[in-house]
């Protein structure tokens, strides 16, 4: 029994007008379900892994609002005898999608749940006042389903390197002179040190190599590398470090090239569209983000 990827979809904010994370999540999730020919009320589990949300809302979990927008077992009132949907948010920066995939796999793999949806979207909540926000407005959705047999996600590795925690920090800070009429405002401030990208590559390559070794696989066995899109060029650099040919790292559309949490889903969508995911025997997910946190997963086709 395992957890396989049924479909993926992305959404981006457009060139002129940005869109909020909720809208991007809704668009991606709706397209993803449609591609897999599933209804929203078939979802058992919905996890949002996005970080930068409309109004920087802290509660409820954005996942519950997306569930509402999808009309997935909204439960007013609950229909006993039919399953509902459970939604919550996971916050793990650039590794959010892989983290969420591990949690969904925990329920979908053994069959406690049949269908789980991961959504991840980020959009600058306040473009006029944010400082250092470098991610594109992008969202993604990935639908995971229970399968018999041993295909699907094989293993996960989440590691942190706190000695590099200061290389990337994102906060919402009160600035008393910010905003209209200098009345003060809570401002998104992101600090990225010059060595952040290189450190992400170093650490991700280290964790990925360890995971491949534990799975008794070599670089040559990896048919596809699905990587974070931020820092830019991360996937190609990690692949090179691992000795995996650069052609095995899909290129994403320019509009998704700096996607934050949705980055790996954007890469996966490119691989779906080019049929490379369908042809790949072993797919390696490699993600990294603040912390430094590295999330790696190995996926095997049936």
């Amino acid at each position: 029994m395992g957890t396989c990827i049924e479909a993926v979809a992305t959404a981006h904010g457009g060139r002129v007008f940005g869109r909020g994370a909720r809208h991007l999540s809704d668009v991606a999730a709706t397209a993803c379900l449609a591609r897999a020919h599933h209804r929203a009320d078939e979802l058992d589990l919905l996890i949002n892994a996005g970080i930068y949300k409309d109004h920087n809302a802290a509660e409820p979990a954005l996942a519950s609002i997306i569930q509402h927008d999808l009309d997935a077992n909204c439960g007013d009132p609950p229909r006993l005898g039919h399953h509902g949907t459970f939604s919550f948010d996971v916050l793990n920066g650039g590794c959010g999608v892989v983290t969420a995939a591990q949690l969904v796999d925990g329920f979908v793999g053994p069959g406690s749940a049949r269908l789980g949806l991961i959504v991840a979207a980020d959009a600058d909540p306040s473009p006029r006042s944010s400082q250092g926000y470098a991610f594109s407005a992008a969202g993604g959705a990935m639908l995971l389903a229970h399968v018999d047999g041993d295909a699907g996600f094989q293993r996960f590795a989440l590691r942190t390197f706190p000695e590099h925690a200061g290389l990337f920090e994102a906060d919402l800070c009160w600035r008393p002179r910010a905003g209209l009429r200098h009345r003060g405002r809570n401002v998104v401030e992101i600090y990225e040190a010059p060595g952040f990208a290189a450190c992400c590559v170093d650490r991700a390559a280290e964790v990925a190599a360890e995971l491949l070794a534990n799975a008794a696989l070599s670089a040559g066995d990896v048919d596809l590398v699905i990587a974070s899109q931020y820092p830019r060029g991360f996937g190609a650099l990690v692949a090179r470090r691992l000795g995996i040919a650069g052609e095995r790292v899909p290129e994403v559309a320019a509009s998704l090239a700096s996607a934050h949490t949705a980055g790996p889903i954007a890469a996966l969508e490119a691989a779906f569209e080019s049929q490379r995911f369908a042809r790949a025997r072993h797919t390696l997910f490699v993600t990294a983000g603040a912390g430094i946190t590295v999330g790696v997963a190995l996926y095997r086709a049936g």
Partner: protein
Amino acid sequence: MTPWMLTEAGHGAAAPFAARFESIGMQLPERRVTTRELMASTRHHTRIDLERLTGIREHRVCGPDDTSLSLAIGAARDCLARSHYTGADLDMVISASITRYVDGTTHRFEPPLSLAIKQAIGAPAATSFDVSNACAGMLTGVFVLNDLIRRGVIRRGMVVSGERITGLGSNAARVIRSILSRQLASLTLGDGGAAVIVERAPEGHRGILLAGFTTLAGYSQLCLGQPARHHPGAQMYTRARKIHQVAMADAPPLIEDALVQADALIGDIDWLIPHQTSVRAIRSGERALAEQLGAHPRHTAVTVDEYGNTASTTLFLAIHRYLTDHRFVTGDKILLLSVASGLEVGVVLFEMDELEASHGHLH
């Protein structure tokens, strides 16, 4: 029959292990503020008798140096002090707070708070991430750990949360004019931190008998918390009456539906530990259970009168308090119930074991 809630045993899935609570810790600020003092701080004269409405006498309030992070670290250290384990023994650390203050007015998005927490408690090798699920955050973390431990992916982990949340009350006090204010619930909040270690139960121990969750997303907009527009900190807008109506109508049948998975009935429960929003709401919940299910748990834990609503930490502050007061006995069946913004309804049913005896022993 398929339960509405997602449970670890849904669709007949079996797991090789059981999980149980190994230790519980907390950190409460020393400073106490009575509800009367809080109501006296409102800018407008309101005539609202909030103490009579909610049964909350006082709240714990952070000092200037306390943060969400420091409360979480304090609770995690207290939890380890009561545990047989050190931080290095933990396989996973999950932070579950709503508030994410790392200093007085700075809310951290990245890196996750769990990273700083595990560093502070000497658990650098533990896998870590944060979850966000409003006041159901800690129980969501337990739900996740229970699944991973039952399947043998990890042996033990910690869920931790620190809530420096009374700043919402300070912002609400500027604008509240009447009992109809949607920010009134902000004045029921209290600060606090809690932590719990969940471990693989030894063979023959029952531990956690059931963990289930659902989101009634049709009501997702009933309680919204976000940064204030022109003040430090955040604001919360709550349609408290509507949330109460939904909870009273929907929670009892959902609980009964989930308990079937553990071959349990509501009348078998020794203790109900519900999310602590107000004494009045908890008593209404007891009555709703009795009316709809024909029985109710033998006892109900109440700590909101002393602590206020401490958001994601209420359930574990209540267990900690009742363990400290020796209110539980080995073998008690205890039902934790989260009802939170989302609208989240979660249950964890467990059987009290050595935790009752070991809680008071600091290692």
